[in-house]
């Protein structure tokens, strides 16, 4: 039951369930991926064990058989040589010698005349069914009244005399029995192990999928804080869990972003809109002269322009975060771009009694969007200019280090308190020092978005005193 429940987690929405076609009953089991994996495991395990047993069987018994055959062959060859050299009597004496030597061993010999009577040997009579020469036979024989099984081969000698040489293979037959029994036991054990292994695999599988299923189901219900627990083994399931967690992390970041933006819109846009509206209504009610009216309208227009600017910055950040600009990425050299910015801003700095010092390494190749990097650096410089006390130095440096292009803008202003630095990169954050300055609180958020789009980072550091903003972008080429 449990299994069927977890099976359906992907389809848990009611309409999907209703649409699901009714399956025939026996296939319900196979529809469980856990059981499928377990079955596959059992079959693979069984097959490999079976193959192992077969090869064991053949290598053991086959080897014995071949050894016996070669011994018999050698024996026959020796006896035939006796016949060539010394005729039949020599063969007879050789056989007798062998029988006497070996005592009660496995050797089986029979020398028979054309009518089948024994001339020499230890077999009572010619075995039934042994008709052809030079062919292997495995037959029951009776040796000194004792019945047994033997591997035999016959050979024709001159004058119709026939020689039979063989080996008693009763021991081999016994071994085969033992092996057979052993293999049957092994097969039973194998089935048990296979089933146990399958169950283990299924439960492992189910636990992992179960973890993911529980988490994703909780997330689907709106509990976005849940994450897939890691087993710590670093296996494929952990890998999957990490990927899913990353995805969830990104989703929740995006959700946070949306929430933050809507809060911000509610607050940061409502305020200037209210101001503009109040000004206009005030003028409509109380303005006595055209000049007064004109002034009110003009200021309201300025307010609206401010709102539009905030709005555009928000859209721009959203556009960057969506990542569609990546399609237009090209390899660009940031060095001339930064020198242009230096030229553009140093005049402004001078005007305000500040000094913009620049150290730019060249070249600084990155894969990116020139306009966005321009805007990001412009935002950092805008901030530095805004917060610098008179006659201080702003330092713009750019260098290529360990295949990262590092652009740093450092000022001597009031800086950002350490506990605020992370939040400073969020939308609409205004630091204590920035309360009374103009600005939307979106500048650094845009820089962060640009950095992330380029797989880079923005770090805010203490410049003792002041702020050092470091934008890092991976270099290319």
């Amino acid at each position: 039951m449990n299994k069927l429940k977890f099976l359906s987690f992907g389809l848990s929405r009611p309409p999907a369930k209703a649409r699901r076609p009714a399956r025939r009953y026996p296939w319900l089991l196979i529809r469980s991926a856990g059981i499928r994996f377990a079955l596959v495991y059992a079959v693979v395990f069984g097959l490999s064990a079976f193959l192992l047993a077969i090869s064991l069987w053949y290598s053991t018994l086959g080897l014995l058989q071949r050894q016996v055959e070669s011994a018999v062959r050698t024996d026959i060859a020796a006896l035939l040589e006796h016949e060539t050299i010394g005729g039949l009597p020599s063969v007879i004496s050789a056989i007798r010698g062998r029988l006497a030597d070996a005592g009660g061993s496995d050797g089986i010999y029979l020398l028979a005349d054309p009518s089948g009577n024994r001339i020499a040997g230890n077999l009572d009579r010619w075995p039934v069914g042994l008709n052809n020469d030079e062919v292997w036979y495995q037959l029951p024989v009776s040796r000194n009244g004792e019945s047994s099984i033997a591997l035999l081969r016959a050979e024709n000698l001159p004058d119709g005399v026939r020689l039979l040489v063989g080996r008693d293979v009763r021991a081999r037959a016994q071994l085969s029995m033992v092996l057979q029994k052993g293999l049957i036991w092994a097969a039973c054990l194998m089935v048990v192990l296979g089933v146990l292994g399958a169950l283990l695999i299924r439960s492992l599988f189910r636990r992992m999928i179960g973890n993911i299923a529980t988490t994703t189901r909780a997330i689907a219900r709106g509990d976005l804080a849940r994450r897939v627990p890691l087993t710590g083994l670093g296996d494929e399931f952990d890998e999957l869990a990490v990927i899913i967690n990353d995805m969830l992390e990104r989703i929740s970041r995006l959700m946070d972003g949306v929430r933050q933006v809507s809060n911000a819109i509610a607050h940061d846009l409502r305020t200037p809109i209210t101001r503009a509206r109040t000004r206009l209504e005030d003028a409509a009610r109380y303005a006595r002269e055209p000049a007064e009216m004109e002034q009110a309208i003009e200021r309201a227009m300025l307010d609206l322009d401010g709102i539009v600017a905030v709005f555009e910055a928000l859209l721009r950040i959203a556009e960057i975060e969506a990542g569609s600009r990546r399609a237009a990425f090209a390899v660009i050299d940031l060095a001339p771009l930064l020198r242009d910015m230096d030229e553009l801003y140093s005049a402004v700095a001078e005007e305000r009694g500040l000094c913009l010092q620049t150290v730019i390494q060249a070249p600084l190749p990155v894969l990116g969007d020139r306009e966005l990097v321009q805007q990001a650096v412009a935002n950092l410089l805008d901030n530095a200019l805004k917060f610098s006390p008179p006659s201080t130095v702003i330092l713009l440096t750019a260098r290529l280090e360990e295949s990262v292009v590092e652009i740093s803008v450092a000022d001597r202003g009031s800086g950002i308190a350490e506990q605020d630095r992370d939040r400073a990169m969020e939308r609409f954050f205004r630091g204590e020092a920035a309360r009374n300055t103009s600005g939307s609180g979106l500048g650094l958020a845009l820089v962060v978005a640009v950095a992330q789009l380029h797989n880079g980072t923005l770090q805010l550091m203490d410049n003792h005193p002041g702020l050092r903003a470091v934008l890092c972008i991976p270099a290319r080429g």
Partner: protein
Amino acid sequence: MRILVVEDDKDVASFVVKGLREAGHTVEHADNGRDGLFLAASENFDAIILDRMLPGGIDGLRLLETLRGQDNATPVLFLSALGQVDDRVKGLKAGGDDYLTKPFAFAELLARVEALTRRGKNDGPATRLLVGDLEMDLLSRTVRRGQHKIDLQPREFRLLEYLMRHAGQVVTRTMLLEGVWDYHFDPQTNVIDVHVSRLRQKIDKPFELPLLHTVRNAGYMLRAEEV
């Protein structure tokens, strides 16, 4: 100048038409793509202000593509609420000459339309620009005012060149950012004002008659006569 405005929003359209007429232009107005295309194709205009999203089955992009397909090279300025970089690129690729995002200041629209028509007229490769007694030689890259040689930084030279090419017209800060620095965003800092005032120091300060004028709520204008 004869200008065609294709814009379906009544308020925006009447505001634009009124403003353009006040600035001395002859204006035709169409409130949908079909009429707009008919007018644009059958009559001669010096410039067209075109909304992207229009009723009537033909949107701004289609209209422009059709027009360009008929070898009609009338300068077109897109005026659109679609402000993403992609939209802008699409508009310019379709054959638009400029792209202005709503909401807009009328001064910006007027300046850009007038700049467009000027661009259409003298495309010839001028080697010398002249405004009053200010003279720029584009080949030797020198600037003189009267008898005096004026030394300019490369960027100041380009700034002055842009202003001289648009002499007698209002040039807005964003136009200068785009045209001289190739920046397509507004920095929070008044970078343009600073650079223009430096340029003014060099070309106007020692002389009696100022050439570079600030136009309130709009931008700058280079002209020889008194405003």
